[in-house]
């Protein structure tokens, strides 16, 4: 073809073909086979191994592939449903727990699952490497494997069975020994190309596009999984999730992927349901993490001033549109077993906050500011980012100039939890049924740099460390609860971090998706009974 014959029509045709070719992959996913669930995913963790990184961003995808010993349940014994373990029993002295394991379970690569895998995961990954396991299994000495389906956990100090039980769904993801033994666990390729025992296999991951999970035909559960395939479409754009649901490009958006402001509207769309159940065991807490290495922030009066500067009612009503509760301390109200309301509280009082800062010796300068701080809001949720915008204004009202720094998840975690390059950070830690699992780690000292979602602010309080250590080995339930009440009082008084609000999430799904939210950690459970009605 010569240039002379290149008409507008041919150009348009060529352009059209080009456009169509770029749109093709989306169509392929959207139409697809009948029994395929497409869910929105909003983050792509760099390490997908739930045995190392026990966080919901990882569980959301990995929990379908790698299974824990037991899962949380609404009606099961001890609030648990068996998974890889079928029963568990503690000894009277609190020094050993015996797990009976499921028979006939196979890894996705065909090798049999045995007690050796559990022992290896516990001793080599959960205890030394996992963000939460290193606390729960701190005193784990050995795991005896008298036969292929029995694992006996031996502790050097009494470890409450109640804690182990509460922790099981979160800390006990089992990975295959034969792929990890003798390798560098942190850089093992199986951390990204997961191999587990779960109802789905991770078959494909296209960064920035999707994760493809396909049915594990050899799954131990009878008649499960009910889905042939799960696609986690990466939709970092939260405004896109609602529109994608309406257009039936996706069928499920968990973790409040549909913005709270959109819920009132989308709940009226036919064919779409809005569900607030299924997050009972994952209460998120809006927390201001404080870097105590900063001279100003090491001063209790400054921390109290910041606490007084925050209008929690505004945060709950305006940022969370009422889908949250104001916090009083490190244990949320929906953990009635441990929650203690009689702790010091900090009413919204700008004048008092200003007076406290004056008292601390940080007078306002000529330009009305006392000092500057680096504020890093976690990028995981709309609400954490919006609270960052709000906090900047709330601090400006008391003469503290906060400079916001935005970063993506990986850069944020590195800056806060490894490099300590922050003064204030806004984080959403999760309360997982027992303060020892994920709450005490936020204030306990002696955690090496690089452990995500832990105390990386350099805070150290011997008394608090003592209570945490004692509670960890108190087998008696009421004595243990009492210790955690003391713990709440000290945290609320000394403010190693500031708890602002606590909230659960919302799932929005098409009506065709069945068995949604049928356990207290549904979004991060294995979805083996989730089905599609055609």
């Amino acid at each position: 073809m010569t240039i002379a014959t290149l008409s507008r029509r041919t150009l348009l045709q060529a352009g059209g073909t080009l456009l169509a070719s770029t749109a093709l992959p989306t169509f392929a996913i959207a139409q697809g086979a009948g029994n395929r669930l497409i869910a929105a995913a909003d983050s792509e963790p760099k390490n997908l191994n739930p045995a190392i990184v026990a966080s919901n961003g990882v569980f959301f995808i990995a929990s379908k592939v790698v299974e824990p010993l037991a899962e949380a349940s609404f009606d099961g014994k001890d609030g648990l449903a068996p998974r890889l373990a079928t029963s568990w029993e503690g000894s009277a002295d609190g020094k050993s727990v015996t797990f009976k394991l499921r028979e006939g379970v196979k890894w996705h690569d065909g090798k049999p699952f045995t007690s050796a895998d559990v022992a290896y995961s516990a001793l080599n990954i959960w205890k030394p490497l996992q963000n939460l396991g290193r606390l729960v299994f701190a005193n784990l000495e050995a795991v005896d494997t008298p036969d292929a389906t029995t694992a006996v956990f031996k502790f050097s100090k009494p470890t409450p069975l109640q804690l182990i039980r509460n922790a099981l769904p979160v800390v006990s993801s089992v990975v295959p020994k034969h792929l990890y033994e003798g390798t560098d666990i942190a850089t093992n390729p199986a951390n990204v190309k997961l191999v587990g025992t779960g109802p789905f296999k991770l078959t494909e991951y296209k960064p920035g596009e999707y994760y493809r999970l396909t049915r594990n035909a050899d799954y131990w559960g009878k008649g499960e999984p009910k889905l042939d395939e799960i696609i986690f479409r990466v939709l970092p754009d939260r405004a896109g999730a609602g529109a994608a649901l309406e257009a039936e490009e996706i069928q499920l958006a968990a973790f409040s992927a549909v913005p709270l402001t959109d819920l009132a509207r989308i709940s009226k769309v036919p064919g779409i349901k809005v569900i607030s159940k299924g997050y009972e065991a994952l209460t998120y807490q809006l927390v201001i993490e404080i870097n105590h290495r900063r001279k100003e922030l090491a001063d209790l009066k400054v921390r109290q001033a910041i606490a007084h500067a925050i209008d929690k009612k505004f945060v709950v009503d305006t940022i969370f549109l009422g889908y949250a509760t104001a916090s009083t301390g490190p244990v949320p109200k929906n953990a009635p077993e441990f929650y203690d309301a009689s702790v010091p509280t900090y009413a919204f009082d700008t004048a008092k906050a200003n007076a406290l800062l004056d008292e601390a010796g940080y007078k306002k300068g000529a330009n009305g500011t006392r000092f500057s701080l680096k504020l890093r809001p976690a990028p995981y949720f709309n609400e954490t980012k919006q609270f960052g915008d709000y906090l900047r204004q709330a601090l400006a009202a008391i003469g503290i100039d906060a400079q916001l720094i935005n970063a993506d998840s990986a850069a944020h975690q590195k800056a806060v939890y490894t490099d300590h390059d922050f003064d204030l950070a806004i984080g959403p830690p999760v309360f997982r049924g027992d303060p020892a699992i994920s709450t005490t780690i936020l204030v306990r000292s002696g955690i090496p740099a690089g452990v995500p979602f832990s105390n990386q602010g350099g805070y150290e309080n011997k008394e608090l460390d003592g209570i945490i250590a004692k509670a960890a080995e108190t087998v008696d339930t009421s004595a243990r609860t009492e210790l955690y009440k003391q713990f709440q009082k000290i945290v609320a008084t000394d403010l190693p971090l500031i708890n602002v609000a606590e909230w659960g999430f919302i799932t929005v799904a098409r009506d065709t998706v069945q068995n949604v939210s049928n356990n207290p950690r549904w979004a991060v459970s294995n979805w083996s009974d989730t089905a599609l009605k055609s």
Partner: protein
Amino acid sequence: MRLLRDLLRTPEGAIGLGILAALALVALFAPVLSPGDPLRIAGRALLPPFTDPAFPLGTDRLGRDVLAGILHGTRTSLAVGLAAALAAIAIGLCVGLTAGFAGGLIDEGLMRVVDAFQIVPSFLLALAFVSVIGASVPVVVLAIALGAWADPARLTRAQVLSIRERDYVASARVIGMHPAEIAFREILPNALPPVLALSAIIVAAAILTEAALSFLGLGDPNVVTWGSMIAEGRNILRSSPSLSIFPGIALVITVIGVYLFSEGLTKAFAGRRLEP
């Protein structure tokens, strides 16, 4: 002055200059028109526009005044646009002048660098640059300039190549002027006009790039920009579309203003050249 008169004689130039002058005034007097931090939480959240005289354009998700955001956003947009264009043209002029005047290996080398920058899409370059170094106004300016300097460099070089063969340059060489003097006093002033006409386009592109970066959350979060306002409004586009529409309109007006101004400028230059 004559250039200004020529410019005002073209309708595009007159309208463009009018819009830009109005925007410049808004940018200059933003602190007077709406005093205080525009990111301040000023009222009830999500007030619809045209309902409360205190907030003519309503408030956003956190109760920040949309009008204040737009007024102050003018500052950021114009400042970043102008600074980035200025930096791009300064770099482009220097590189183009050096390449065109020196010739030989230096020319070849510099032009291959220009090629390298022209190959990479400028927006991707800015995106990568900002996400690696971190978002702040100077970084954003530099990132945009990095992607925009190659065009003025090429244009300048082409101009220089033609001008340096002219007789007056040869005579300057004969009377023993220093090469640098020839470059800056004889060649540069004559090579400048077409590059300046290009500059308006660069400003418009820079304003759009800045808005796009902010939209993607890579702008400076501590200043208000139209791009970040649109991005925040996008989350609730279905229920409060005005939050994205108003800053969008501001962006459109600005870019149209700059574009018309550049059209007028080109015509004014062309007219001048036609006159004897």
